[in-house]
């Protein structure tokens, strides 16, 4: 019970931002939440947000883990996804006839490529102790050229029925496929976190690598592992993005998405300096960014000003999220709460403070 309250306060920032955006949108039109059926699929603002944010959500999850363990960010995720998807496209187009099997095998190859790219960054960071941003700068700089070469210096077209279904909707299924894939991915991670000690290990390494080592955790392995996971995330995100687009544009595919992914991690209440993390927060952060982009469009801000407005909004957000303001807010909350505790105590309910616990023990 108390845990859930704690977690909620952790998510207070992203949820309140989300709520604010919803209010703005509701003012613009009461039908904001309305969902209709179009050609057998759900259509509306909400499905659009889930559809649009698919890649960002997936990459934010990986970015959260990398940030937590390595205390830095991978800035090459867009480029990695471009390379993995180039490999996917290369395989599928070479296969001649496109079947579900070739798509799956192509995806498998792109995953292997993603893991290899993750391993490349991971080795630089964990073994050679290169700062994550510097390490990933290599792929960030050269990644698109590599993808361009894989593409055979063209933008190959992926116009086939199965890709189209993956990028849009499968007849008979009312939800767009990228949304389903995102949900599957989130479920996969939920299971991963539930069935392994990934969270405990990553947090421990991120907070105190020395202590982690003395308690039997190998920080190098854990940091490497987070980059591998990041590589897998880029493969999945690249897969979704290229199927959505129906062709492989090595120049623009998921360009600069690491900015939004890092921002999602920050909005999610995670420290960019590593340590404790909340993947739920990052996911909400990613959807918040998607919603923010759409809200700015909905407000019909002129194109030249749209970046300015986004920047202003993010500055406000970051100030609210800053430790200084948070501390102030906590002080206020604590004051209110301590007043309440005093009342509770007189009623004889569970006290919170150390002093009270000590007193209880004495009794």
């Amino acid at each position, binding site marked *: 019970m108390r845990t859930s309250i704690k977690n909620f306060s952790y998510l207070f920032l992203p949820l309140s931002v989300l709520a604010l955006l919803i209010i703005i949108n509701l003012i613009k039109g009461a039908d904001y939440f309305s969902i209709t059926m179009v050609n057998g699929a759900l259509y509306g603002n909400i499905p659009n947000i889930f559809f649009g944010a698919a890649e960002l959500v997936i990459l934010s999850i990986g970015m959260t883990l990398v940030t937590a363990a390595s205390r830095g960010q991978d800035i090459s995720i867009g480029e990695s996804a471009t390379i993995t998807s180039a490999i996917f496209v290369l395989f599928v187009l070479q296969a001649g006839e496109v079947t579900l099997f070739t798509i799956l095998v192509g995806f498998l190859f792109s995953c292997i490529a993603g893991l290899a790219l993750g391993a490349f960054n991971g080795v630089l960071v964990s073994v050679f102790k290169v700062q994550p941003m510097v390490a990933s700068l290599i792929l960030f700089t050269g990644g698109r050229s590599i993808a*361009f070469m894989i593409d055979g210096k063209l933008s190959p*077209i992926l*116009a086939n029925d199965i890709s189209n279904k993956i*990028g849009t909707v499968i007849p008979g299924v009312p939800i767009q496929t990228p949304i389903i894939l995102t949900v599957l991915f989130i479920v996969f991670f939920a299971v991963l976190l539930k069935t392994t000690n990934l969270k405990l290990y990553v947090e421990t390494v991120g907070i105190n690598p020395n202590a982690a080592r003395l308690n039997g955790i190998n920080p190098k392995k854990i940091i490497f592992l987070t980059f591998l996971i990041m590589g897998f995330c880029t493969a999945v995100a690249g897969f979704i993005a290229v199927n959505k687009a*129906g062709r492989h544009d090595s120049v*623009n595919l998921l360009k600069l998405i690491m900015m939004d992914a890092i921002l999602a991690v920050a909005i999610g209440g995670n420290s960019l300096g590593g340590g404790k993390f909340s993947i739920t927060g990052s996911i909400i952060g990613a959807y918040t960014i998607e919603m923010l982009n*759409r809200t700015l469009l909905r407000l019909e801000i002129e194109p030249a000003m749209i970046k300015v407005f986004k920047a202003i909004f993010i500055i406000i957000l970051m100030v609210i999220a800053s430790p200084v303001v948070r501390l102030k807010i906590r002080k206020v909350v604590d004051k209110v709460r301590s007043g309440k505790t005093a009342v509770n105590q007189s009623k004889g309910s569970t006290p919170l403070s150390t002093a009270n616990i000590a007193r209880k023990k004495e009794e």
Partner: protein
Amino acid sequence: MKKILGILLVLVILGSGVLFAAGQQESGLIKVGIVNLPPEESGYRQANVEDMNTVFSTANGYDAKQTNTMDNSEQIAAAKGYIRDGVDYLLISAANASGWDDTLKSAKDAGIKVILFDRAIDTAESNYQAALLSDMAYEGAKAVEWVLGLGLDPINLILIRGQMGSAAEIGRSGAVLDAAKAGKLNIVADGTGGDSWSLEEARKVVEAAIAAGKDFNVIYAENDGMAQGAVQALEAAGITHGKDGKVKVIGFDFNRFALRNVQSGYWDADMQCNPRQAAEISKWIKSGNIPSGIIYQEELLLTTDTITDALIDQWGINADPGKGVITR
């Protein structure tokens, strides 16, 4: 230490360049230095660089060297290197329109003819021989002319701009804004695909317009990728488009996938932005008859009615999905 290494590296590169140049001196080929942006910049540039490579080849009688970089100062350094090498012609597509005056003058002093392609430079016309450019305002005007000729009344148009402030965006948007000012059409939504001319952003612009209940019948997207994103939004919302549809769609750039979409009636039109200046420039050089000043390329607008396989093959850029294949 790093600085010294850097200097050494530069010296080695310069040295090898000089050696290379010296070795080629007596081959009788026309020496051309090409300063361009890298193919990673855009699909347009991919085709452009590829075209430069094929036309200015040894087989065609050229000894050409290329430097492709986004960095203006690197471009200038490369141009100066070519001037030192004593090329006959210097072809430049500048990353930045300013900062070139000295370089261009020293080329002129060395008797090297400078031909700008694709991108203009802010300098006196006397500083270069010729510039072969795409006229973005012309492209915009031609596209808007097509929109106005559709016979729609009223014309409710969604404008999806490219990177704000880029030459292409200014030219292509200008025509639409002028027409709107003149009362010839209504802009019901005005958005941008951002710095990467993003498909996803374009899709969001149209989705926002649909969510706001806007009634529209034309989508004017300033490149093919954004047109694709816009049509994805229409498809998802169940709004018809293309030849027999409600919303008329026009894109820019002549990507072959876009032309196939037009051919199939999935879109309605595409406006060319020709990256193949090389053949024209080569013709000038070979004939020895080089015009002076700015020359605009002739560019096409193709619609479902005028498009043919031959045109797609000749003028399209990038991969061809094949006849009848729609890239959704």
